[in-house]
């Protein structure tokens, strides 16, 4: 199997570079840690709040903001908020009423944490209700206008702080279902793609050094060389995947869901990524161009595809655009797997799209490389 020789030699050259350890291992882990802590590491669950432009709603929103134990995220639309809760990017959503005749909508993920948030939100509402009642009473007794009565009530409110409650947790800490999960899958996609792209430098070096030409002088077919080079990109990308998945599972208790389905998803994405890597290695003339273009494309596609910011926060148009990238499809797949205990059947569409795209990109890259090698020999 000369393909394996070519791929193994390329991989060996990559790993021999000291910077590889940094880029393949330390950097992704660091990113997961930093982003996980920055966006999700706090123990306050994120609650999306949709606030209509009325005094009542705005006051309620302020109270929720001030409430301890939850992190309020302002969301523009009710449907977006609900979708985010469904996907696990928010723990709960509160759609505030414009007036007292409309019900408040509260959307929460099932489970203990949902109940906790629910009680925090209810407490806030109870206090607000008590305040309004008190104001109505003061207004009726003293003949004051309602706003005046409200400010009187507000003025004496600090004299009646909420009854103190001492909470003690007992028993084992529940599994942290977390923001790390989302960060880890985003980083996984970003880095798998990035590493396949920047690794195309190895292919360019082979061409520049004349090793590629020399390989053509051995009894080795162009097809074998192309498959070997493709396999090289694939193995780097897969190696990166294993490092991130295992590392994040061990260090941050990230859950990747059904292992077989996750493996198929990762493999599909690796094929796409290495196809793009092979393409870049074929088209780019110099290593500098390849690295520049590789970084730009990797970061651009990751950002567009929701590997930097959750897709749920995208508008519906942008979400459609995002699905032009393999990242969005893979991200969908991972969120299914991690959050809904899904299996292969549930991510069949994502798998089909990614595998098809992978083979297509790989095919185009192989065809171009074959042409380029033939022209070198022509």
């Amino acid at each position, binding site marked *: 199997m000369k393909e394996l020789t070519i791929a193994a*030699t390329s991989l060996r050259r990559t790993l021999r570079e000291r910077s590889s350890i940094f880029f393949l291992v330390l950097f992704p882990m660091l990113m997961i840690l930093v982003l996980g802590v920055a966006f999700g590491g706090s123990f306050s669950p994120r609650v999306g709040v949709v606030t209509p432009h009325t005094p009542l709603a705005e006051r309620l929103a302020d109270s929720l903001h001030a409430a301890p134990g939850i992190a309020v995220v302002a969301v523009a639309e009710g449907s977006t908020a609900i979708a985010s809760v469904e996907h696990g990017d928010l723990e709960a959503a509160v759609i505030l009423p414009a007036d007292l005749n409309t019900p408040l909508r509260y959307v929460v993920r099932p489970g203990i944490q949902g109940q906790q948030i629910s009680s925090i939100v209810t407490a806030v509402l109870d206090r607000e209700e008590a305040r309004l009642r008190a104001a109505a009473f003061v207004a009726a007794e003293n003949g004051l206008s309602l706003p005046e009565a409200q400010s009187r009530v507000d003025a004496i409110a600090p004299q009646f702080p909420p009854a103190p409650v001492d909470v003690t947790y007992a028993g084992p800490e529940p599994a942290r279902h977390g923001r790390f999960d989302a960060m880890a899958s985003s980083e996984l996609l970003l880095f798998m793609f990035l590493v396949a792209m920047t690794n195309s430098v190895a292919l360019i070096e082979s061409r520049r050094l004349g090793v590629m030409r020399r390989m*053509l002088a*051995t009894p080795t077919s162009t097809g074998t060389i192309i498959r070997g080079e493709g396999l090289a990109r694939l193995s780097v990308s897969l190696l990166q995947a294993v490092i991130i998945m295992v590392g994040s599972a061990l260090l941050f208790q990230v859950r990747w869901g059904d292992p077989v389905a996750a493996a198929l998803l990762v493999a599909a994405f690796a094929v796409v990524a290495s196809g793009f890597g092979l393409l870049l290695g074929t088209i780019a003339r110099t290593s500098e161009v390849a690295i520049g273009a590789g970084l730009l494309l990797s970061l651009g596609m990751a950002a567009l595809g929701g590997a930097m910011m959750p897709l749920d926060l995208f508008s519906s148009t942008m979400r459609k655009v995002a699905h032009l990238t393999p990242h969005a499809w893979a991200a969908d797949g991972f969120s299914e797997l991690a959050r809904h205990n899904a299996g292969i059947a549930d991510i069949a569409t994502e798998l089909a799209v990614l595998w098809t795209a992978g083979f297509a990109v790989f095919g185009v890259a192989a065809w171009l490389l074959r042409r380029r090698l033939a022209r070198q020999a022509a």
Partner: protein
Amino acid sequence: MSCHDLRRNYGKLVAVNGVSFDIRPAETYGLLGPNGAGKTTVISIIAGVLQADAGQVTVAGRPITPRAIGAKAAIGYVPQELALYPDLTGRENLRFFAKLYGLRSSETKRRVDEVLGIIGLSERAGQLVSTYSGGMKRRLNIAAGLLHRPNLLILDEPTVGVDPQSRNAILGNIETLAREGMAVLYTTHYMEEAQRLCDRVGVLDEGKLIAEGTVRELTAMVGEQDRVRLTVAAEPQELARRLNASDLGHSAAVDGNEITLLVKDAPTALPAILDLAGQTVRSVIVEEPDLEAVFLHLTGKSLRD
């Protein structure tokens, strides 16, 4: 190896223009020509890495084209550039090419060690190629073409930019390989190398083979003859007269106790000359006419531009 009417253009530039020649088994054939003569182009076609516009090549009885994968096993190709991975060790580079040449694992290890021994790099084999000197890299470059014991070894200017000591070692290696029966195709623009190594030489200029033959045949074309210089202990005048009178040589001239004479075929005639001179000869120098002169004669240009 046999090639017939090879042609190759780069756009409008005619790089190779109808080149034909043969190399016999165990023969060392030199392709001599100035920069840009088309040596690398001819050699690339023969090695099967470049598609010819026209013409055929056969090596060990099998036609060679870029697509003739199996037939390439008969050829060891050492390109003009250092086609090696600098970030791998010498041994790793050789192992890589051995696998590509289709050697089995057990065979690979043995051959890699053997070849490292031949080129004298066994001690440095475990170090990165980037730490090698220019001469060592050149030697490793050659080694990578020897692994599979090719019938035909093709070397494209293997001594470019190499110090005299390494060059001598490289030429010695090639001589040894040739003596062991490997056919060698060697390009150079150093005529001394062609003279030292090659059984036959083809002179290439502007894509055409303008002359071919042994070094002797080529130089004979120019009409020059060997200059033999004898240093004698006594009576140089008398000896010069006798040499001129014989049919061994002519134009004998005396300078001090040194006699210079022109001889048609010095290696053949020398025993008779020494016989004639008897005990008085202290030293003999035979100066063959060189290929530089041949090239000058054929093209009106110097080999080294």
